């Protein structure tokens, strides 16, 4: 993005951002934590999209994964446990020009933030939600989360988690006005990159459930898929997540799936014998809430004062 001038001198006419522009504080996750992979991918997607760092805001709740904003050199909002989504929605409400990202854990999003999850999907504001699903509460040291597999021993259920694990895909797909649902493992960098990139490109709320490795507290959560890729099902389609042949090669099980087909998406999501990977559903035409909430941004003070005067006059006696 340099321009060569007539006198052969070089002129910087646009800013060019390198990965360094998106670097934040030094990440402090455990060695082997899947969060690193997501962080690096976010940096790369931002760089490749050449987002001005001051225009992006990374919002999160509380948890290991919710430390994400601290490690990205954009604006950040490290909020409260479970509240990332309303905060992010609020950021976007009157600032549609901002590029909003949300980092949230399985406990943060599906448990304490469960109500907000449903509604944020329905608001469908333009943002990327990265769910770092490690099937456990990491930061608070191994308590059962909604996605903890049945029978998994945790510190709150030492005899094993009692209930069937929640299926976040079917729940999300079931929400009216949902517009983008994808799933991806953190240990496949090219797919992770393409998925997050597609999520970022999509206008609307992109729900990306990332199967995230937590070697410290829930090693068993991702192991079945790491060790047996045949337990995963790659969804491919020309409108889906692009995957190069060498990436495809890793997946023994593959199907063609048109992401505009909601019924098929729901079927795939419901079948828990295989972990679907790729884009389950996309509806580019879903209603986007900031199209309402950001109306009237350009009113001048004169217009506002005139309108308030009219409002006051309606009460005149």
């Amino acid at each position: 993005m340099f321009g060569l001038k007539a006198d052969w001198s070089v002129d910087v006419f646009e800013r060019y951002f390198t990965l360094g522009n998106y670097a934040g504080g030094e990440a402090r996750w455990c060695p082997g934590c899947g969060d690193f992979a997501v962080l690096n991918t976010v940096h790369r997607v931002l760089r490749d999209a050449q987002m001005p760092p001051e225009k992006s805001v990374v919002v999160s709740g509380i948890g290991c994964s919710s430390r994400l904003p601290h490690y990205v050199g954009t604006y950040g909002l490290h909020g409260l446990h479970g509240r990332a989504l309303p905060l992010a929605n609020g950021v976007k409400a009157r600032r549609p020009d901002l590029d909003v990202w949300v980092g949230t854990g399985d406990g943060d999003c599906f448990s304490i933030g469960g109500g907000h999850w449903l509604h944020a999907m329905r608001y469908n504001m333009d943002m990327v939600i990265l769910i770092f699903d490690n099937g456990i509460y990491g930061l608070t040291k191994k308590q059962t989360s909604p996605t903890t597999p049945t029978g998994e021993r945790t510190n709150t259920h030492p005899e094993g988690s009692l209930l069937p694990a929640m299926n976040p895909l079917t729940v999300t797909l079931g929400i009216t006005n949902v517009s983008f649902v994808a799933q991806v493992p953190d240990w496949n960098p090219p797919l992770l990159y393409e998925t997050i990139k597609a999520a970022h490109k999509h206008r609307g709320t992109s729900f990306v459930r990332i199967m995230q490795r937590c070697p410290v507290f829930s090693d068993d959560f991702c192991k079945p898929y790491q060790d047996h890729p045949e337990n995963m099902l790659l969804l491919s389609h020309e409108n889906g997540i692009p995957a190069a042949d060498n990436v495809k090669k890793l997946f023994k099980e593959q199907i063609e799936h048109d992401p505009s087909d909601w019924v098929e998406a729901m079927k795939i999501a419901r079948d828990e014998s295989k972990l679907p990977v790729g884009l389950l559903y996309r509806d580019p035409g879903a209603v986007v809430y900031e199209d309402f909430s950001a109306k009237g941004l350009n009113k001048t003070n004169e217009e506002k004062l005139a309108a308030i005067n009219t409002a006051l006059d309606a009460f005149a006696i």
Partner: protein
Amino acid sequence: MTQQADNGDSAVQIGGNKTAAKVDEYIVEIVSDSGEGAQKCGQTFGNISGKMGNGVWTVEIIPAEIQPPARSPAGASGIRIRIGSKYITNMGNEAELVVAFNEQVLFSRIANGAYKEGTIVLLENKWETDPDEKIRNQYTAAVKEFAEHGLIVHELPIEEACLKIVSNARKGKNMFVLGMISYIFSREPDLGRKEIANTFAHKGDKVIQPNIDLFDSGYAFAAERLDYLWEIPPYTTDTTKPTIITNGNQAVGLGVMAAGMELISMYPITPATSATHYVADVFDNVGGFVHQAEDEIAAMGFALGASFAGKTACTITSGPGMALKTELIGLAVMAEVPQVIVDVQRGGPSTGLPTKVEQADLLSSIYGEPGDAPKVVIAAATIEECFHFVILARKLAEAFRIPVILLTDANLATGVQPYTRPELQEEWLSAPIDQSPWDDSVPAFDWDEGTGLSQRPIPGQRNGEYVLTGLSHTDRSKVAYDSDTNQTSMAHRSRKLAALQKTLKPPKVHGDEAGGDLLIVGWGSTMGAIEESVDILRGQGKSISTLHLRFLSPLEPGLKEIFSKFKKVMTVEINYSDDPNGPLITEENRRYAQLAMMLRAQTLIDIDCWSVVYGHPLQPGMLQAEFNQRLDALNN
């Protein structure tokens, strides 16, 4: 029905040969089943009276259920209008005249002490001939009972008269009654007709005309059948000053717009919701947006996100909603995000008295968050202040980078009063979002040593990138768990309150500034009733004064000095406190009213309190009696 204004000083001639007696003030109630339009009738009557230069206070009588059974005491729905030849600041004592659409609804009002011996009851008499024998019996028994209470009952065929004009008297009786009371209080009938035309303007002539007919016949009906005729002369000296009449929630809504806030993020809760109902109707015109969130936590989070992104947003709620917002208010304090939070207080705890007044969120507003969470808490004392304090709140929130809680209550929310029309100022509007580059040598929390104040970078400002966090953080908003960082950042956040307090002036004493026997201290909506009773006692030569606080956190300066000039200081509040003479109560375990508790701690003066949670606004009469006792005790 022509009114001949006679400028003689004692009486006015209206209609026939009756003479209107001049009175200084009057309290009227209209009570009905819900859905019969009594409130519309009373509001219109209030508007007419305001236009005629009277002081007005109206307050709605609201049943707790949306559609309580017809003819049930608990279903009493209606309105009280107090008008006078003076500025009226509260609902007053007992009503002197009531129009009742059925006899049953009067029972709950009687139980509430709304009437006295001699109160005139204009009662719909159709129930006397109701096909249902039970109703007929109820009616006759009630009329007898009312007489035994000393009420003067006039049984009137109101419905019958209405049916001559409309086929469904349930829709329209209210305008007939408006005509009746307009006659009784010598209101200009043309003002009434104009108000009706305005009210139904959007429905067209087909609706306006029958309503005007109803009004006119109500007017004639009263002239013909009743011997009552009063005149309440105007008090406004300056009738050229433009005046508006609103309730407190509408005032809050207008204030939000005049403050330049562009986002209200809320979840419905009585008695706060009507503020948003009002704004939702007109917000588009100023480019604003109402976000109805999925719950109060989300409402607060959404507002906080928007404030962080540039423009201070507002959330409006009541007690239970405040409880849900608590954790996020703590985040706003910790991360220094400007925020306006309006709490229209209702009776608590829990779901409590949803439609009724209480002032019991003071301590939870100031101290409600876990950890030390200094924030600004102010309280509006009048409906007019509901407007101006929203503007003040936004300014303080931004200047001090802090959440500001504005306390109003159900009394202000539903009370309607005329006041000087605010003259809008452009500087009230919030400034456009600064998107110029940030000087990156300046940290995100560049705390000033002396005041704790700092400027905040706004997303979009180049080189200002920082991460807002609720964790303990350094001036560069880096997470830091070390002792020094925590101690100094806490000190900076607290110092902002001291800095604000230094800019405040000591409150004015209403009464004897030099001191005296008894000083009453109040806050919030009780000011009108307190001052009215204090003025009456002062007129009788009693040494009593009052002082009303607007700033609760930080507290206004000079209190200790003022208090020490009085023999006794006591607060008057609408929240629970133990009766000092109650069973088991001793000086050691007595729980004081909320402001009293704070003032005792802050001044080390033995401040007493008087507080009740009857669910209705304080009345001057009951305060007068209480103050008299206190004064007697002091002087004996």
